[in-house]
């Protein structure tokens, strides 16, 4: 199919239907993630299979409303089975969910394979509930989907504050005089609804990923549940439309895997590029801190040179003498960096001297280093021969406020434990 056909009524129906499915899934999925109940959704999704199978056996019809009713009934039975197993305290929650999930899935496969034997081949349509086929949504289906999604949106909007509070701290809320049973039942209802409409596009097997991935993609960017819902809706829409497009272009490709793969890519990208929490932001932070350490070590060496040479220019070899003190090889790079950042000045014959800017920076590092050495010796009783190595890291993390506190505690000292002068603050 070509792009030109996007506005064809059939294609429009498919697009609208799937967009609605995306919205419903994202709304409910956000709460499934916040409640840490994704696996429960997985159980319900797998229960859809025996549901549609049973509906078909009983009615011999495969239009969506009939199948949805069958799936609804069986999903609710599966949920009740989980509740029943919760009365057995020796089973753990993962075991309970695993049991119900596998049994309903097994039943579903048995039913569908039996049906396939008996009445081939037009019943193959039922298989789309396994892997999803987005492109078979008709306008009649869209009406049903719209009604169900409207129900989901209405409930989440109505009970938003209770849903959030229950996700955060259910125990506190249950101690309050509120009829929360209605909220819990409503939540379970919309969870089943979102799964019912979602399964035909995404498939029962991958439904849980469809619920969980969009809110996960939104999480590192948001500060509030409201924005998490909006972010999840956007990601979900993008993933579903991607799936629809592929489904229209390549009718043999199941849509579910496309949708879920698209959503997973967004999750990875989102966690890479998110500010602060994101992988790249953290890598950048680590690199920036490493650069800062290196820069400050080099300035410390500059300070030592300036201490000895006063304002005489010196050459490259002079800097290399400070290798043991964190000044690594590659003095050319170092000099280039210092020169570019304005810490040293060039003199004829490739000789150098420190600038005021460089000295200011160097004084600060040396001050912090020597103050911390003194603190280690006086307050933590670290032997003098060990204070230097311990101070090597701390000198980079001291803030001006901490530096001042330190100086106060040490009563404005003049010399470090090695007897070297502690330079006064720049400008004083």
């Amino acid at each position, binding site marked *: 199919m070509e792009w030109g056909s996007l506005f064809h009524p059939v294609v429009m129906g498919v697009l609208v239907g799937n967009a609605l499915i995306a919205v419903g899934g994202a709304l409910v999925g956000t709460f499934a993630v*916040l409640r*840490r109940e994704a696996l429960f959704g997985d159980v319900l999704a797998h229960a859809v299979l025996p549901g549609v199978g049973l509906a078909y056996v009983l009615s011999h019809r495969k239009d969506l409303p009939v199948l949805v009713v069958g799936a609804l009934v069986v999903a609710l039975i599966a949920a009740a089975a989980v509740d029943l197993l919760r009365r*057995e*305290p*020796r089973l753990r929650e993962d075991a309970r969910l695993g049991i119900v999930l596998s049994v309903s899935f097994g039943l579903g496969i048995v039913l569908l394979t039996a049906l396939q034997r008996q009445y081939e081949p037009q019943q193959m349509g039922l298989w789309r509930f396994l892997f999803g086929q987005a492109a078979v949504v008709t306008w009649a289906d869209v009406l049903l989907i719209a009604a169900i999604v409207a129900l989901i949106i209405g409930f989440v909007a*109505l*009970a938003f*504050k*209770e849903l*959030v*509070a229950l*996700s*955060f*701290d259910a*125990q*506190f*809320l*249950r*101690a*309050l*005089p*509120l*009829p*929360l049973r*209605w*909220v819990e039942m409503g939540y379970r209802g919309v969870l089943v609804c979102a799964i019912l409409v979602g399964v035909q596009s995404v498939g029962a097997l991958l439904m849980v990923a469809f619920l969980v991935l969009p809110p996960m993609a939104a*999480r590192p960017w*948001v*500060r*509030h*549940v409201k*924005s*998490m819902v909006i972010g999840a809706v956007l990601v979900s829409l993008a993933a579903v439309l991607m799936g629809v497009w592929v489904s229209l272009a390549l009718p043999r490709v199941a849509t579910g895997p496309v949708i879920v793969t698209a959503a997973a890519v967004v999750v990875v990208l989102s966690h890479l590029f998110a500010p602060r929490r994101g992988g790249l932001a953290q890598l950048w932070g680590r690199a920036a801190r490493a650069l800062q350490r290196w820069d400050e070590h080099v300035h410390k060496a500059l300070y030592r040179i300036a201490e000895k040479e006063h304002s005489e220019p010196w050459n490259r070899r002079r800097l290399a003498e400070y290798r043991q003190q964190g000044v690594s090889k590659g003095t050319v790079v170092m000099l280039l960096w210092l020169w570019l950042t304005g810490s040293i000045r060039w003199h004829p014959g490739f000789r150098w001297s420190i600038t005021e800017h460089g000295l200011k920076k160097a004084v600060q590092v040396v001050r912090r280093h020597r103050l911390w050495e003194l603190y280690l010796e006086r307050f933590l009783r670290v032997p003098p021969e060990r204070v230097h190595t311990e101070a090597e890291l701390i000198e980079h993390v001291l803030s001006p406020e901490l530096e001042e506190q330190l100086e106060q505690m040490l009563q404005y000292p003049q010399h470090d434990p090695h007897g070297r002068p502690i330079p006064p603050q720049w400008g004083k």
Partner: protein
Amino acid sequence: MNAIECRDVAVFYGRRAALWGVTCQVPLGCLAAVVGPNGAGKSTFLRAVAGLLPVQRGEIRLFARPIAEVRSRISYMPQRESVDWDFPLTVLDVVLMGRYGRLKLFQRPGRLDYERAWEALRHVGMEQHAHRQLGELSGGQQQRVFLARALAYDADLYLMDEPFAGIDAATEQVLLEVVHELRDAGKTVVVVHHDLQVVASVFEWVMLLNLHMIAAGPVGEVLTAQHLHEAYGGRSALLSEVVQRVALHREVMRRKGA
């Protein structure tokens, strides 16, 4: 009238008893501590009193009424570790939850609720953090948020599970002040606490718990060497065993009160 009255209370998780034969009272308007070793059932006791767990045997009455009738007068503060603090909400959102019990289901918080929430935040010294993310709080600040939420509810009985665990001296000071203010305002405060020294100097009433109530009453009478040895010398293996067997007999379990 007593704020809390327990008669022969038993609570089970499955077939394992967490509380057995617990009988105790907490007088109105007093500062009470629940003390006992790890796994003694202190949290279970508090949750049973808050009406969060079904009581299989015996009866709990608050203000001389069944729990269900007085829910609007009790404020439960769970252990800080019981929730996920990396949750996309702000401090103010959480404190507002304290007001939910004063609102109808689905009703939005109004001006009064916001005022009360801000008041509670100021009370615990957190007003400058009102719009901070939960994930950015320190342990002591988390505890203050929980305290503010409990205060915003404005109850008569406060049940606090280990509010003093893992906090700094400043937060401890705030907590102690608030707890005393509540008591002076005629409220009853029940606190799970691990530090016997603090309990002896701050609280008036103590419940010493280890599966059963070893002693409950004024501090001086309860914190004796004999009682403490009983509580901390290990759970009575005999009692645990007997309770497990008894639990199989439905008739015994069904009896309400003794």
